Every structure is written in structure tokens, then in C-alpha cells.
């Protein structure tokens, strides 16, 4: 997983996209990063069409359940040329059965929307000869009169052999008092058979242990002859079956292009249904592709929203507009700067994977490259410090800016001298602001950053200081963190450059640093 994917935590949503068929799952993997607007618009159209279909079927739960049933039972089938065996024919038949049933549930319009072609004509009927059930397959007698004839003779021989065996077992029981039943052999005390002359004629005897013998019915001459005939017929049956298999295999090969088109269509349809289900479950909306500014209204970073719900904390969706190519985000420690970056990364990942997005509205562009530089990013070469690794990542990202780059910098250069870091970051942002097709968001604490008119500056609204009173010294860490969450205003607001602090001292105090140290720090800052 690359650094951007890890940072966005998109996998947590992607893993919840669950198509029912193997073809839907294949399609899902093929649609991880899409850069073509028309392809995305087509996918979103399909999601909407699948939504309309589900809405229609919601009043007919039986039909809906049949639809899911057939999708879930579609098997893979061989798509390469070559000899097909019984197993492969079984897979093709099973696929055709469920595919045909699926088409029967859908309207002609729905079939058109998802490019679901008619199945190859006559193939299912060909694979369904004899008294077969819809979901099973065997080389029935009905495929070939010679095969039927060979099998009829096999049946007759089998019956004669069974009769012979039953007659012999009857004689053994009558003459020797031995009842084999289903048992292939018996272990008896040696003395039991010593006097019976018939025993040697009817039974094969083998020593078992010191006092016992193993006996089994002797195969009689007539049975040997029947068995030999049977072996010959079994060999003939295999030859006849091979011919039927070749004939059926050729028919399947001929129909392969249509079968592949059916498979593609059903994959598209299945994945669209899965996207729709996900959109309904998580209240996702269709994004809008634009050449204008990136706009987020009510954007939700789902992992954080779900964590807040688990902890019983309120979650603040993101409203933001990123007009220019570069936006700097200042803000308190624990003030939500990183979550703003993560929200954009999450929404953009949804878009480029063909999903709807967790927002009230999201207007965005497409980016050929999405990069993240910050803590937890890609590991660098051995010998590089944290700062060195970041610099290398920037060099790499800039080399790929052609065709559109979304670059997220989370507290870039925080590990080096702040004066030099501010100068470096200022120069970098100035350079980025003149790059076409680029959107860079940079979170930072460096308030002394040189201001560039081409760069937009925002800040997190931060701590509601008026409500800071009343934190008891005895409160545990978890309570303190929850309290900071409760006092933090996570809205993104314009930054005029007038507010110079980032609540660091207040947060330090709230997290339990001694009052004396915090006061001393305030004095040193001249705010005491």
C-alpha cells in the first residue's frame, strides 16, 4: 500500500465494497485508480441505475432475493482455448443457468444499461440433456446413442454380477451358515471351517492370526468372465465419453466470445449493485467533476466519524473550498489539521475508485498522481533521516506533477530548524503555486512562513478558550483527551495571519503538564 492510500485509510471503505460474484470481485480490483472522467461518469451512472433497480425491487423482496441468489452462485468458467473436461462443462452450464435466470429478473432497459448480452443460443440446452438438474452436470446417455447403448450393457452386466453374487452369498449362508451381508470379508476361528468341504469351493481363505482365518466369497468362473466383459465395456465407455466431451467442448469454445461478454456484463452489474448498497448504507453522494475549485460540503472522513460515534463524541463534517493550487492550513495541536488532509484524501480516493463520496457535496478534479508526505509516509533509503526522507519524497512527487498532482504535506520539515524550515517551505509552496494541474494542501505550525499572494491560508478554528476552566487535576488522560475534543472547534476558517499562537501551551496544560511550567512558558512568550 502506498503512503497516500495508507494515510487516507481508504482501505477501510474499500473492503466494505462486496460484490456477490467472482466477476464483480474481479471488476472491483480492476477499478482501484481511475483517471478518465468519462469512465468515472459511466460508473456513477451505473451506480444510479443500480440504485433505481434496487428501489424498484424493494417492493418485491422475492425477486430481489432471487437476484442475489443467482449472482452469488455464478461460478468462474475457463476462458482459454483448449480441451474442456466435465468439470469445465459443469462450470459453463452452471454459469449459463444462473446468468439466464438473472436476465429473466431484469428489464430490457436494465440489461442494456449494464451491457448484459443474451447468452449463446442453444448452449444451455445442449449442456442440459438427459434428466439433469439445473445446477449439476453429467455426460448423460442422451448425448450419444452409442454411449447409451454401452451404458445399457454395463447396467445389464452389473445386474447379472449382482445376481451372481447374491446367489453365491445365499449358498454360502445355506451351506456354511455364514452371513456376509455388506461385509467384504469375515474373520473366523479356524476350526469353524475345517470340516466343511464346501468352504474351499465357495470361499477364499487366508490365515489371519494364530487361531483365525480371513474368508471372502470366491469369485466364480462365470463372474470372472462377466468382469472381463465389464472391463472392456468400461474402456469403450471412456472412448465414447471422450467423443461427447470433444463435441460439447467445441460448442463451448465457439460460444466463448459471447460467454466472455456475459461475464463482463455481469461483473459490471454486480459491482454497480455493490456500490449502490454501499452508498445507501453510508449515505454517499455522487461527486461532481470540475475544472474549477475543489469544494467540500459536509465531507466526512468515515474512520474518524465512526470512531467518534463509538466514543460518543460529536463529529464535525468538513466544509472547505480550495480555490488556488496551494493552501496552507495552520491550527492548534489536536485541532484537526491532519483530519482535513485525510478527509480530502479519503474523498478523492472514493472518486478515483468510482465510488460515491461521504459528503453532502464534493466537487473535484482528477489527479494522475496522489502523494502524501508526512509522518508514516513511505520508508526512505537507509541512512536518511526523517527530514532527508521528506525531501526525497518531495523530489519524487515533483517529478510526477505532469498530468495532475494532489500533494498533501502534513507538517513538512517539522524535524529540522524552524527558521530554515519556514524558508524552505515558503520557497516550495511558492514553486508549487505556479504548477498547472496541481492541488497542494500543507498543514503546518510554522506561523512565520513568508506569505505568498498565490497561496491561500486557512486555519482550524481551534480551542474555545472561554470554556477552558474547570479541568480537575485528578482527571485521567482519557477524560482530558475527551475534554479537549469537546472544546475544539474543528471548522476550517480563513487565516489572516493575526492569530499567532496554536494553543500549544493550553493543550499542554490540559494534558497534565504542571501549571508552573505552563506559566513559565507563557511568561517567556510574553503572554503571562
Amino acid at each position: 500500500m502506498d503512503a497516500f492510500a495508507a494515510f487516507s485509510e481508504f482501505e477501510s471503505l474499500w473492503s466494505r465494497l462486496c460484490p456477490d460474484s467472482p466477476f464483480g470481485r474481479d471488476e472491483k480490483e480492476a477499478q482501484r485508480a481511475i483517471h478518465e472522467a468519462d469512465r468515472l461518469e459511466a460508473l456513477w451512472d451505473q451506480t444510479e441505475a443500480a440504485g433505481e433497480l434496487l428501489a424498484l425491487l424493494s417492493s418485491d423482496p422475492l425477486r430481489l432475493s432471487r437476484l442475489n441468489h443467482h449472482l452469488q452462485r455464478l461460478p468462474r468458467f475457463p476462458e482459454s482455448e483448449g480441451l474442456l473436461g466435465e468439470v469445465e462443462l459443469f462450470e459453463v452450464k452452471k454459469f449459463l443457468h444462473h446468468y439466464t435466470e438473472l436476465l429473466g429478473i431484469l428489464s430490457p432497459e436494465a440489461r442494456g444499461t449494464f451491457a448484459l448480452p443474451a447468452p449463446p443460443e442453444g448452449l444451455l440446452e445442449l449442456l442440459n440433456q438427459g434428466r439433469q438438474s439445473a445446477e449439476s452436470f453429467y455426460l448423460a446417455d442422451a448425448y450419444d446413442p452409442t454411449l447409451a447403448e454401452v451404458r445399457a450393457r454395463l447396467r445389464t452386466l452389473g445386474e447379472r454380477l449382482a445376481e451372481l453374487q447374491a446367489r453365491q452369498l445365499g449358498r454360502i449362508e445355506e451351506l456354511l451358515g455364514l452371513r456376509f451381508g455388506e461385509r467384504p470379508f469375515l474373520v473366523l476361528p479356524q476350526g469353524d471351517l475345517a470340516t466343511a468341504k464346501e468352504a474351499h469351493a465357495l470361499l477364499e481363505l487366508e490365515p489371519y492370526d494364530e487361531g483365525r482365518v480371513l474368508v471372502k466369497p470366491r469369485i466364480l468362473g462365470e463372474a470372472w468372465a462377466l468382469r472381463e466383459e465389464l472391463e472392456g465395456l468400461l474402456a469403450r465407455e471412456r472412448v465414447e465419453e471422450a467423443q461427447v466431451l470433444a463435441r460439447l467442448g467445441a460448442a463451448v469454445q465457439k460460444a466463448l466470445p459471447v460467454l466472455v461478454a456475459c461475464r463482463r456484463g455481469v461483473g459490471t452489474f454486480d459491482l454497480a449493485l455493490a456500490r449502490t448498497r454501499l452508498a445507501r448504507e453510508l449515505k454517499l453522494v455522487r461527486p461532481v467533476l470540475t475544472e474549477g475549485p475543489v469544494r467540500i460540503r459536509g465531507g466526512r472522513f468515515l474512520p474518524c466519524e465512526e470512531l467518534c460515534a463509538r466514543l460518543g463524541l460529536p463529529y464535525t463534517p468538513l466544509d472547505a473550498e480550495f480555490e488556488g493550487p496551494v493552501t496552507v492550513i495552520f491550527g492548534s495541536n489536536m485541532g484537526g489539521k491532519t483530519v482535513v488532509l485525510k478527509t480530502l484524501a479519503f474523498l478523492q480516493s472514493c472518486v478515483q475508485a468510482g465510488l460515491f463520496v461521504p459528503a453532502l457535496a464534493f466537487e473535484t478534479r482528477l489527479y494522475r498522481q496522489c502523494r502524501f508526505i508526512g509522518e508514516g509516509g513511505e520508508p526512505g533509503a537507509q541512512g536518511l533521516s526523517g527530514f532527508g526522507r521528506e525531501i526525497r519524497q518531495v523530489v519524487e512527487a515533483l517529478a510526477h506533477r505532469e498530468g495532475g498532482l494532489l500533494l498533501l504535506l502534513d507538517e513538512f520539515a517539522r524535524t529540522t530548524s524552524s527558521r530554515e524550515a519556514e524558508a524552505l517551505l515558503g520557497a516550495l509552496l511558492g514553486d508549487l503555486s505556479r504548477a498547472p494541474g496541481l492541488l497542494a494542501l500543507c498543514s503546518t505550525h510554522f506561523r512565520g512562513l513568508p506569505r505568498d499572494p498565490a497561496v491561500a491560508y486557512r486555519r482550524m478554528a481551534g480551542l474555545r478558550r472561554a470554556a477552558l476552566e474547570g479541568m480537575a487535576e485528578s482527571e485521567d488522560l482519557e477524560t482530558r483527551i475527551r475534554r479537549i475534543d469537546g472544546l475544539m472547534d474543528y471548522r476550517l476558517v480563513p487565516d489572516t495571519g493575526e492569530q499567532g499562537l496554536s494553543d500549544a501551551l493550553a493543550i499542554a496544560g490540559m494534558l497534565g503538564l504542571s501549571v508552573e511550567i505552563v506559566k513559565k512558558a507563557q511568561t517567556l512568550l510574553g503572554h503571562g
Partner: protein
Amino acid sequence: MDCWQGMDGAVTAVTGFEKGSGKTTFLDLALARLRPAGPVALFSIGLDGAQKSPGGNIRVLPGDVVLSSESLVRASDTRVELLEALPPRAGLGRLLLGRVLRPGSVTLAGCEHLSLLAQLLRRVREEGWAHSLLVDGSVNRWTQVAALGDLGFVFTARVDRANLARIAARMRSLAILDRLPIEPDSQALRWEGPLTAASLESLPRDLEALSLEDATKVFLEARELTRLLARVRLSLRRRLPLRGLVVSLRGLDRADFLDVLGEAASYVVFHPCEAA
């Protein structure tokens, strides 16, 4: 003991203590005994079908469900209706689950992965393809077989003077384990993974109670197990019933053998092919 009753409508792994233990004959007879109550499905674990007779070694009748491979079925005198296709297995080609259409003999073929077999067992029950399910097991994969879900065990063994002491000790251990209390929510020290002679050393000296996942996780000799039970109360969180110890005796008297087994004697079923 009536092992058949427990096997009817359930999943049973039939495991031989060693080669020539009478397992295959027992499976044949089990099929015959279980069929009247409903179709029986037969599976195998980790079997290399190629080592067996290609013509087949298990007698099957129409309605039985078998896990085999396309090539093994084609080489046999039986024919099946395909119910499910499975991934290929090296040396055996495509595996299949089939319903027998013609009486004959077939060689079973095991899935490469037990998880796949577990899935298949569930499927067979859900679809109602079989009423009772038999798994041809292997004693050295006993622990893994437990991963297949709710199932019971039957062990087959051929006992002679040379192996009497060893086999009797194993049977006594199995019987002891089968009688341990089942306490899924036990508050005792929970032991995860196998319990071996070496791991006994790491148990606290003053330990009073120990909770194990199931009987297949115990790798102790009967003597070690008895010693442990003398000082620690053992319980299991999951029951895998022992449905029977099917024994073929060679050169041994039944009464003498049962004497040696002690309490485990109640699990013994003498091989149905042996006259009393």
C-alpha cells in the same frame, strides 16, 4: 458402544491409528449402515489419490456424494453427477464433488486446504445433498481436522501383542479426554495451542484448573495426562465427541484386551468383519 447412532446425521472423521487399521473396510460398512437414514457424503483429508488404486477403493452406490477428482472418477467404474467444482490439486487435476449415479468403486481425493473442505462440508449440509458426512482422516492431522467445525471422531486400530501397550495407552488417553467436562466460559487459565510434555513445565506450580480448546490439542502420553489430572482440574471449551474405537485384534483375546483398556473399554467396537 453404538457408534452408528452418533454418526447418523452428523459429521464424523474416521481416522486410522496407522496403515492397515481397517479404516477403509470400516468406511465401506459405515456407508452401508448410514444410507438407510439418508444419503451419505464421503470426503478425504490430505490424501494423495495417486497412491491408491486408480480404479477406486471405496464402494459407492447411487445417491452417495463423493469428493474426488475428474481423472480418478473417469478411471473408475462409477459415474457421478457433478455438484461442485473445486480448484485443481497437483497430480490429481480438477477436484469435484459428485453424486454417484452408478454403483462402483472410487478413490477419494482431499482438498489442498482444510478451509476449503470446511466450506464444502457446510455447503453439503446447507444444500441437503447428504444426511450423514464421513471424513477419511489421517491420525497425524487430527488437530487440523478439528478446524472443520462440529464433528465427532471414530478411530480404527489393528492391535496385536507388539503394539498392544502403545495402542491401549492412546485409547485410554482418548477416553479420558472425551470425558473431560465441557466449559466454554471457564474462568480457569486458558491454554491456547497444543499442550505437550514440554509445555507442562511452563504451567504454574500452584495451578488448580486449566481450560483447553478441545481434545485434539492434547499431545500427552496417558501417564502424563493422568499425572496432570491428579493435580489440575482440566476442562475443554469445545466437545469433539469420540464416537468409537473400532478394533481389529490379531492374536489377542477380546476379554484380555478389554481388561487392559480399563475404562476406555466402553468405547470399543470390534470390527464388524470379525466374528465374536
